[in-house]
């Protein structure tokens, strides 16, 4: 007997949309969110202990989020557990078992749970892809998402004079958030060149007509740039970050179509913080643990009902393709409906299905325009750190591959230590694979940096106690909070 009809991992836009949608069909729903607030990254906000008088100022579609919160508050058959960390998924005997530890992030003495459901929806989102750059380990270098999280979640400006570099439209809302936090954005450097941007953003203009929310949003950002006289430089990138113990300046250069720096175009920009955001990497570890098949592009493959290759497991949001909030909301709604027993062809889903089609095309446009160019490794120096956790530099990666002639990712990782640190390859994995794959042939062992059977750290003490074990002198600082937010 399953513990709940529909279990959802992730309370970002996709997970929230799935939850309310599943409820409309009549299923019991439980949402597990690792952070102590819902909303994911898109709706990262000030916490309840320190609310804002004008929170919507920082957000888009804030009303939508408020609707989700009200639905959760009002509905006893919809439980949203924050501080619920899914650390492992077991897939055996055709059953999927979700292992959770409840309490503070990286807490101790937290309570373990082992949950089954009739349907599981994975909405675990994505994180920033930051390509290694010489000097990127200096304090003051953060991801674009970090600048957002700090600005929206804590009202912290990560710097006074900030350089933003990377690829993709996400650089715009980051600029906006930093501006609203009082920072001076000295420049936004988009690796995709003007010609490439025009080719993809202006193609098939009839598609853009239906994506009106997105176009309005973008127009708003352009306005920000013009008003603030913030330079936006397509076809440029940060190729080095300079400073002794912290960021003091960034070296920017023009990039060619393959993102190779063009010699002689380097300039120094004075700044005290650099935000890097070269796109996003989907958080696939739970989907992989559940046995879900992946596409060649390394996203979870789903059908028209958001079903994965594993019966009773669904996926929605960034893990099926980087598509932003509108696509996540549409996919979430469909996943929730179908997971709860509805059909993808039901009339109630017509709007969501149309939205999914529109915003999938939009997502493809973005992917084409801002795809990472193969020449980015040209800006690396032998001493550039590639694996931040284990401090493995570019020169070491190349030397080990040369000296061992290895074509196995697993062996290369274990020999270089790249990807073996605390972040388990989340930050460096894709970049390490780019660097080590021999001429794009892939690896002979079929290993991937996305596979992590332990998806979140758990203390041995917590692991050693059976699920639902409650200490007499309970050491856990917070038990899982049934959040009515």
């Amino acid at each position, binding site marked *: 007997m399953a513990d709940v009809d529909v279990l959802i991992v992730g309370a970002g836009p996709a997970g929230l949309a799935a939850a309310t949608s599943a409820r409309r069909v009549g299923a019991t729903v439980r949402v597990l969110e690792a952070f102590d607030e819902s909303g994911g990254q898109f709706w990262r906000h000030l916490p309840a202990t320190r609310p804002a008088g004008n929170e919507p100022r920082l957000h888009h579609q804030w009303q939508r989020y408020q609707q989700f919160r009200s639905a959760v508050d009002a509905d006893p058959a919809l439980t949203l557990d924050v501080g619920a960390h899914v650390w*492992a998924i*077991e*897939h*055996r005997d055709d059953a999927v*078992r979700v*292992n959770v530890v409840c309490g503070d992030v*990286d807490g*101790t003495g937290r309570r373990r749970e*082992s949950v089954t459901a009739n349907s599981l929806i994975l909405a675990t989102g994505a994180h920033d892809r930051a390509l290694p750059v010489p000097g990127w380990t200096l304090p003051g270098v953060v991801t674009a998402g970090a600048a957002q999280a700090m600005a929206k979640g804590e009202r912290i400006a990560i710097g006074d004079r900030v350089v933003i570099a990377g690829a993709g439209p996400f650089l715009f809302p980051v600029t906006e958030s930093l501006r609203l936090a009082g920072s001076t954005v000295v420049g936004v450097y988009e690796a995709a060149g003007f010609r490439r941007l025009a080719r993809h953003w202006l193609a098939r203009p009839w598609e853009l007509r239906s994506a009106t929310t997105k176009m309005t949003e973008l127009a708003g950002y352009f306005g920000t740039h013009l008003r603030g006289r913030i330079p936006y430089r397509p076809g440029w990138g940060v190729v080095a970050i300079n400073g002794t113990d912290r960021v003091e300046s960034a070296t920017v250069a023009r990039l060619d179509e393959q993102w190779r720096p063009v010699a002689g175009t380097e300039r120094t920009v004075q700044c005290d913080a650099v935000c890097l955001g070269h796109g996003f990497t989907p958080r696939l570890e739970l989907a992989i*643990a559940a046995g879900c098949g992946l596409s060649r592009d390394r996203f979870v493959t789903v059908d028209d009902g958001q079903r994965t290759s594993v019966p009773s497991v669904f996926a929605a949001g960034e893990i099926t393709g980087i598509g932003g909030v509108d696509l996540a909301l549409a996919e979430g709604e469909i996943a929730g409906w179908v997971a709860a027993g509805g059909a993808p062809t039901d009339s109630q889903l017509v709007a969501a299905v149309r939205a999914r089609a529109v915003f999938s095309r939009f997502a493809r446009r973005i992917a084409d325009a801002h795809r990472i160019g193969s020449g980015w490794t040209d800006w690396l120096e032998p001493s550039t750190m590639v694996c931040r956790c*284990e401090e493995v530099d570019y020169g070491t990666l190349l*030397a*080990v591959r040369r*000296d*061992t*002639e*290895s*074509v*196995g*990712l*697993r*062996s290369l990782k*274990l*020999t*270089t*230590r790249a990807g*073996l*640190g*605390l972040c*388990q390859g989340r930050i460096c994995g894709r970049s390490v694979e780019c660097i080590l794959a021999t001429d794009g042939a892939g*690896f*002979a*062992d*079929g*290993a991937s940096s996305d596979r*992590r*059977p*332990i998806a979140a*750290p*758990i*203390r*041995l*003490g917590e*692991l*050693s*106690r*059976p699920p639902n074990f409650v200490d007499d002198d309970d050491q856990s600082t917070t038990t899982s909070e049934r959040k009515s937010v």
Partner: protein
Amino acid sequence: MRIVVVGAGIVGAACARALTGAGFDVTVLERGAVAGGTSSSCEGNLLVSDKTPGPELDLAVLASTRWPQVAVELKDQLGDTFPSIEYEPKGGIVVAYSSAGADALLTFAETQRQAGVRARTITPEEGLELEPHLDPQIAAAVHYPDDAQVQPTIAVEALLASARKAGASVRTGERVVGALRDASGDRIVGVHTDHADHAADAVVNAAGPWAGEVAALLGAPVPVLPRFGMVLVTPRMSHRVFHKVYDADYVGATQSGDADLQTSAVVESTAAGTVLIGSSRQRVGFDDRLDVRVIAQIAAKAIALFPFLEQTQVMRTFGGFRPYMPDHLPVIGPDHRVAGLYHVTGHEGAGIGLSVVSADILLAQLTQSAAPLDPTPFALNRATLAPHLNDAA
């Protein structure tokens, strides 16, 4: 003389190195990547402490003198820029926390001493001096100075790099699908892969837990089976574990053939600053999916040994398949049913340690010279294996 070695794990790599060192023309065939199997899913143990007196212990004692030589040889051959195999003669400490466990441990240690192993019975106080973070309620402890560790994946890569320098060819992504036989059918004259035919004067099956599958494909079945084990890895921490430390239950686990889950605590640091925590033994075929129940048991036993682990995180886990023979002894030597075919496999949980001496024995057999150790106990045609062998096809 041309040799084909099937399998680029620790045993295949050690064999390739030993054979090229003696002038053979060696081709290593690996269906995946080098060190892609058990060799990259283990702790890199080089132990004498866990072995019952007998041929395997004799092999291990010999290995404990051979490995430091190999480590120096590899360093000299490959230079300082090649990653270190992290050979560390750290020593092992086995601890018992019950009086029954203590009796068993001390009796066992005495038999090992008689077989030539350095096994020092130490007091609980000495134990805590050597390992200050152990649970202090020690009933008995034995120190084995000759236990050591290597980083197993790097060891494989180093052995093969050394073999390549001496002229070995290593072909990855190439899978053996059958044997090439001579006209009589009684002699193997090479192998047939999914890429090519490779003629050889001798074929060495070093495919670890998959040696049974390879043997069958070559028409000479060998009953190697996998025994799955998991290891937990912690984040880097301050150095608190100085030897390989395990509870006396471990010895029982290595010797038993039970199908059920068996766990016992094995804890050691690595040169990288992490702590490896094992161990488990299960017969689940080649299923390496995570089983939380197993790692939960390992965690509980490890905490009983080192209480500080209660607050330590599990950063990642990995699992590997130990290749074992039904009589729990490796096979090293010729296949009596098929001339030219050799098997070096079935080392169970001791493959890393025993690899180099197994390779030395194989070399002696191929050159018909004196082996460093009597290879008779490891022969495929030994009495204890007979009931499990089918005739060669």
